[in-house]
């Protein structure tokens, strides 16, 4: 089979699970994504923000529960 999933000459449609596996990009062979220090610290700041927001949501839901909305 061709990698498009069907043979044009026979116009045959094959379910991908029945087809020969296609070659994909092997991510494990790639080096880690290059990240500048600014990007790295931005991601850490993002993580801190996320933790804070999760706490706030729990507070909000708790207050709504106590106040009966």
């Amino acid at each position, binding site marked *: 089979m061709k990698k498009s*999933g*069907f043979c044009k000459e026979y*116009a045959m449609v094959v379910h991908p699970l029945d*087809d020969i*596996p296609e070659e994909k990009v092997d991510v494990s062979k790639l080096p880690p*994504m290059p990240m500048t220090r600014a990007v790295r610290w931005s*991601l850490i700041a993002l993580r801190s923000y996320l933790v804070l927001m999760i706490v706030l949501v729990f507070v*909000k839901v708790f207050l709504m529960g106590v106040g009966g909305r």
Partner: protein
Amino acid sequence: MHTFAANVPVTARSKWVRRVLTFLVVMGPGLIVMEADNDAGALATYTEAGATYGLHLLWLMLILLPVTYLCQEMVVRLGIVTGEGHAAIIYKRFGKWWGRFSLFDLLLVNFLTLVTEFAAIHLVADRMHLPPGIIVPVAVAGLLAMVLTASYRRWEWLTVLLCLFDVSWIVIAYTCRQPAGQIIYNTVVPQIGAGGLTGKLIFLIIAIVGTTIAPWQLFFQQSCVADKRLRYGHLKYARLDTFIGAVFTVIIGGAMMVAGHTLTSHGVKYEDAAQMAVSMGSVLGPAAKDVLLLLCVNAAILGGTAISLASAWAYGEVKGAPASLQLTFPQAPGFYSIYSLCVIAAGAVVLIPKAPLQLIILGVQVLAGIMLPTAVIFLQLLLNDKAILGDKYVNRPWNNYANWAIIIVLFALSLLLAAQVIFPEYFPQ
């Protein structure tokens, strides 16, 4: 057509037939991820929005249509190019630290969301005067049975059938007899209603955004695409599948709002989706009540299977363990154990007496809305990674502009929520 489910190729006699057949072969992940998104939490959020604000928030659905499509289309590309799930890619490209954090986030929100699915089933059982102690375990057993056949195709077709049952929402909305002109007007003209921008409205808007574009969807669809082994040549069909799914989910979400509005416009107070279903019996007839209760259960089952699979796939990908619906339990014990553990534990949580179920449902949608910007930022970085996607599949500039706009809006909404919690006096209730 039945041969799709069998291991037999189908011969097409014309180009169009071939295209249609190929689409039918590829179709599934996009429709399922979008419709499973209309889960029990979404049902509760949309119907509450309709009950509280009438048809005034319908415009949000129209805005969320391109947003949800753009986010999901990116994971389709990543999945087809790499043949791996989203968690695996984050783990391999950003390293173990970020990979494990992302997995923790996903498992936490997914588990809480799964609790809401069972909470909805509990509420339905209560309203039908059936014992939740029996109905919830039956639902758990059903969710386990869906995946334990070691066949991706069997699971997919069953799930697509459940998705198509949601067409009933359109029939329900039609029988509500709301003025079509008003529905169209409220869909295309953004407004916030007479009460202004209150704290409750902000909370509900974030919940709607959080329920329409949830982090688990990114992980689920990419893993689904990888497990189905979609090929480069399938990309355009997978995009169409995703677009159709996005349109379908937005229409169904709008229909849920219309149903919620119809309830309160008949003078009935809204409590939760199951109560709405029962009360709608007196508005639309007893058949509507039964259909709505079944739709509530359907939403919970759809969401339950998709969310549990997202967790199980992600766990397998990060741990490097086999994770596929094509494998049997002995071949992928970690994958099936995580799926089973999530389903059984969430089912057990809702059987705890006097748990504030409707509040948990709404709170989880907000949590998902807050976590989404982080997930989209990782997605944005990955979709600009030429080492993976090359020049052909990497994001175009317009993709990036749209993504950053989405991220900014999502952050603004979550900051509004933070402001509302810290300074509630500035937000009229």
